[in-house]
């Protein structure tokens, strides 16, 4: 493979992987704290794509012509509204089930996922929607036919996801909220005894996860320009796979898992075959779990006897 093709594939893998990583954070944090697979998370990401487009269109219809300002407002709006969805979903569909069987919230989550998908379809219509290409800048490296061309948005995706990741790590490691999160993740009962309002912490985890998915939603919408009410499903499953690959419950694991999955898909498509890239992605997951049962960065489980 030529160097420029390889470099291009690496960029493809990194952008795709960053998106997976951002969404995987929502899965991994929720799993870490209440041990449930939040199947509706992919659809929360889908919602954020819609909110992005609606917000941009509304802002432009008011005659706003400063693009950076519009993007900033959109990013904030999307994060707020998506986070509100995350909070509400937890409150309505998951909290009443706490303390029952482990699988009850899973089924509830599938129900929520159906509600979100079909709710959006009913209100926004079924057709594929899009936003115009707002940042058309592309960067080209190389001469003649041997060049690597990437869009500015792709660069943004990588930069923004890595910095959101860093900010989140800071939040979890350094702030009081983060400490409470970690404590609740370790032992919910003990944390509650020590005076931590665990309900509030669980809510904030859903809010953080949804906000991260919102960032992904804004970036994806800007980069690919096209979305429909069904995108949450495909991306959600991949992001969840990434979370498990990296070691579910681990934040750096989510990002690492996302990047590895993204790179694996890009390189496999590039070198072997696009048809079987998902087969490869899932096989990779199975293999990693056979040899490292708790994922790449998950803490090895010492059996508590």
């Amino acid at each position, binding site marked *: 493979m030529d160097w420029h093709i390889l470099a291009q594939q690496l960029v493809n893998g990194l952008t795709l992987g960053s998106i997976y990583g951002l969404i995987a954070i929502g899965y991994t944090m929720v799993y870490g704290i209440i041990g449930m697979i939040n199947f509706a998370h992919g659809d929360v990401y889908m919602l954020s794509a819609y909110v992005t487009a609606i917000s941009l269109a509304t802002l432009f219809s008011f005659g706003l012509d400063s693009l950076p300002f519009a993007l900033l407002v959109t990013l904030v709006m999307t994060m707020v509204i998506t986070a509100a969805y995350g909070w509400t979903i937890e409150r309505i569909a998951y909290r009443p089930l706490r303390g029952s069987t482990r699988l009850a919230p899973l089924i509830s989550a599938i129900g929520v996922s159906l509600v979100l998908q079909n709710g959006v379809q009913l209100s926004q219509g079924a057709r594929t929607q*899009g936003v115009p290409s707002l940042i058309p800048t*592309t960067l*080209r490296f190389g001469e003649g036919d041997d060049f690597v061309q990437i869009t500015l948005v792709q660069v943004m995706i990588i930069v923004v996801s890595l910095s959101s990741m860093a900010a989140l790590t800071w939040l979890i490691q350094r702030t009081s909220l983060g400490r409470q999160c970690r404590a609740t993740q370790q032992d919910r009962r003990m944390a509650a005894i020590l005076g931590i309002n665990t309900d509030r912490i669980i809510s904030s985890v859903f809010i953080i996860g949804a906000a991260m998915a919102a960032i992904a939603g804004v970036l994806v919408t800007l980069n690919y320009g096209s979305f429909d009410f069904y995108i949450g499903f495909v991306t959600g499953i991949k992001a969840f796979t990434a979370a498990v690959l990296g070691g579910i419950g681990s934040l750096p694991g989510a990002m690492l898992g996302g990047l590895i999955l993204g790179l694996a898909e890009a390189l496999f498509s590039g070198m072997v075959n696009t048809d079987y890239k998902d087969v490869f992605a899932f096989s990779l997951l199975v293999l990693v779990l056979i040899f490292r049962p708790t994922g790449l960065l998950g803490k090895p489980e010492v059996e508590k006897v």
Partner: protein
Amino acid sequence: MDLPSFPRGLLAMVLAGGLSLSGLASAAETIKIGVAGPMTGGNAAFGEQFWNGASQAAAAINAAGGINGKQIELVKGDDACEPKQAVAVANRLLDQDKVAAVIGHFCSSSTIPASEVYADAGVLVITPGSTNPKVTERGLPTVFRMCGRDDQQGPMAADFIVKKLKAKKIAVVHDKDTYGQGIADAMRARLKELKADKKEVLYEGLTRGEKDFNPLVTKIKGTGADEVYFGGLYNEAGPLLRQMRDQGVKATFVSGDGSLDPAIVAAAGGPKFIEGSYMTSVREARNIPAAKKVVAKFKAAGIDPAGYTLYAYASLQSIADAMKATKSTDGKKLADWLKSHTVTTVLGPKNWDAKGDLKESGFSIYVWDANGNYKEIAL
């Protein structure tokens, strides 16, 4: 075992539902026609088009006095493009709603099992959108289609790519679905006949529902292809095109009727990405003189007659004409009539062969301009 309260209530509901529904279909002041397709789920956009087209047609026919004095009543049947639902909904349309004919099913994987049910019951079915050859190749007498077949438009694209565009390297991409892979394979078969199969440098499938095709695009770039043929729908064609241009791939994009939809402009993120792409399709419905008035009516009703809308319209017109002429709703009679007569529809005159396929496919090639419009090109 004491019967829990929930199932008991459910049982009551089932019985009540069954009784009330079976009691309904007695007096036939109206002629019921089923419109089946994906009204929910990932392909709901197409179901919506079916329904819009059929309901406008029904309104027009009813306003003109209906069929032999009877009004048309449409019944919606949702299959969500799931084969298991398709069979259930087909039986429901026949049993519960007692429809006289069916317009429908979009996904070929739904149309194939459902048409068995209709044919078994001797009910006429016209699919406005299933292009898979298998739909009409099974010898079912009452199954028709209002669209072309995959093995008709694929070869046309191959001729165009080889002869007109003088392609040197062709990359073939499909969406691993019945329709998309079908036309891509038909295209390749024709390439072989033209002894141009050596020019094919890539043949791969992408996954429907995804939006990121960058790795595939890079691979296309690596092959140095100057033509990309895509078998699939606009939902994927849009992002694929955009990512090609974003990566600096200049290859000409050629695709089939599944991509020829104004919505591809939004799906790609702007007309500049689609400019210069070619797509094969049945004579573009909106440009056919006969369709002008109908299109205006759609616009007045706030509906964009995109995609399969007018095909559904034409399907209902054909059914209505056959019923008027035969004064019957018997599927066999209707089918015989359709196979021996020409129907004037919004899409122009149509007639069918013995299998139920359209006799003249009427495919032409369209090119997109910089403003996001397309026009037919002379060959």
